[in-house]
């Protein structure tokens, strides 16, 4: 990391806090399940529904499983699902949006109308609908999240590409006889990537909420796979006897998402100089 980057990071408190929380969360979900003395799936019928204490920081659930270990393992699955879904939607959406902007005409009009149509469904209803069409399960959650994000990235990359298409450096590449695919990938993509990345970082946070929502209703990841939605749904079952499972799991999820959202905010301030000025002290 260069000195300039470090200074930017330290100067922007939102970005700093966001990156720190996100880093801790990522380390937690990658290494947590390995370090933890418990197994996310191992049942222990002696320690059933014990409130949080020194040995079980978030308590245990109705099968005596350590909630913290489950949350970390579930966080890993939920983050993976959301990340893959957003990546899928971003990759396909960006390719479609950029080539639509390049070709113009009916291809552009067609893609934008399709995006308008997808935008007209409530996002969660669209995801729910996709789960019925595809069937429940982790893979289809990823596809559903991807489909929800596809129109967002398609529209964004199309608008950004259009705004750059008549810039001198693009014209120069054109006159040199470069192929369109090469111009889009080498000349235009690096210039719009930062905006797309900001959108993606916020998207991952929403994707996690979407996975949790779908699995919470039982339409997403299916137990015993511990995704965050599955753990929250479990916690609801015995909410009266062990309220900490649902409450604390949700609290941990909220803090993790807070980190991701702050990171997105900080990156946005950084990439948009107009906002940087208006963002306040």
């Amino acid at each position: 990391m260069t000195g300039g980057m470090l200074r930017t990071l330290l100067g922007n408190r939102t970005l700093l806090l966001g990156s720190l929380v996100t880093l801790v969360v990522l380390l937690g979900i990658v290494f947590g399940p390995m370090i933890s003395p418990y197994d996310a799936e191992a049942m222990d019928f002696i320690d059933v529904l014990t409130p949080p204490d020194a040995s079980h920081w978030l308590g245990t659930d109705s099968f005596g499983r350590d909630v913290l270990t489950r949350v970390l393992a579930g966080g890993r699955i939920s983050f993976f699902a959301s990340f893959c879904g957003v990546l899928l939607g971003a990759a396909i959406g960006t390719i479609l949006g950029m080539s639509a902007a390049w070709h113009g005409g009916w291809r552009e009009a067609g893609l934008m109308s399709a995006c308008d149509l997808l935008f007209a469904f409530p996002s969660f209803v669209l995801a729910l609908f996709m789960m019925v069409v595809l069937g429940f399960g982790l893979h289809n959650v990823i596809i559903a999240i991807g489909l929800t994000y596809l129109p967002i990235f398609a529209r964004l990359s199309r608008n950004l590409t259009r705004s750059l298409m008549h810039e001198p450096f693009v014209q120069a590449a054109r006159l040199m006889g470069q192929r369109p695919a090469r111009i889009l990938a080498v000349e235009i993509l690096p210039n719009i990537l930062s905006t797309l990345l900001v959108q993606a970082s916020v998207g991952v946070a929403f994707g996690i909420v979407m996975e949790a929502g779908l699995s919470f209703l039982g339409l997403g990841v299916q137990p015993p796979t511990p995704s965050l939605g599955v753990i929250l749904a479990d916690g609801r079952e015995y909410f009266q006897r062990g309220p900490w499972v649902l409450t604390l799991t949700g609290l941990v999820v909220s803090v993790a998402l807070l980190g991701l959202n702050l990171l997105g905010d900080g990156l946005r301030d950084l990439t948009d100089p107009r906002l940087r000025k208006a963002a306040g002290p």
Partner: protein
Amino acid sequence: MSPIAFRRMLRRAGILLLTMSAGALVVFFAMKAAPGDPALAALGENARPELVAAFRREHNLDQPVVLQFIAWITGAVRGDFGRSLTLAGGVPVGQLIASRLPVTAFIGFYALILAAGVSLLVGIVAALQRGRFLDTAMTSLAVLGVSMPDFWLGYVLVFFLALNVPLFPSYGFVSPADSLGGALLSGFLPAVAIAAPMAAVFSRVLRAALLDVMHRPYVQVQRSLGHGPAFVFVHSILRNALIPYVTVIGLQVRYLLGGVVVIERVFGIPGLGSLMVDAAFGRDYPVIQACALTFLVIVLLTNLLVDLLCTRLDPRARA
């Protein structure tokens, strides 16, 4: 209405109809592509073949897909979405939608009004107190609000409020048709859970819009003309900041409705959302199609409404 405005309205109505038809097409054929046989799903895997055949005949499933679509869409225009495959021996789906829609509309509007009201207050205070303690506190709270899953918030609200304050019921819903007061009371916690992330988004947008407008030259001109700060704020600053604010509220309605679907299940509210989730479990295709289409129409109509509202707020868009 001028001829130009009339032509614009006509064009917009045309686009609306076109989007609805395209939506109907997508919803129908995507559902047909879904794995599993609805007849076997409804009757059980080991149903007698003649029963399955009768079921297929009754629900039009034995015809070519294109004919099924034509039958479905001509019925849908008249509000006839076929019969439910699972519920109470084939209730007409149109009837189900009609009974559930008012509940969802009530909860949705309730949450929208709460979110708009809170965000109007928070956004204005944060913008006026920019950089001071109140601004920092409210802005931080707003980011937290965006980060909390709404259905989890619903449960926490039930746990800490409904179980301690007997005023709010923790489960169940009083229809607004029976008692408006009861509906407002029983719908309060669900509406708060749906509204919280929305209010956070709205107030962030309003704050940014207000700060953006505050330093525009025309605001300075108004001040230099000797108008008081309150007058300038209401007539020049707020009025102009409302345009992006209303636009974002319109765009967020699709997320708000998503929240309604989950929250209805959490609180056991018999609305469109819980109907759709139940139908998803039962593979009740006609009901899922009708629900998806109804949500689509709600969003499209909201977009139209927001467009009209923005035209009223922004004379430049009237043309």
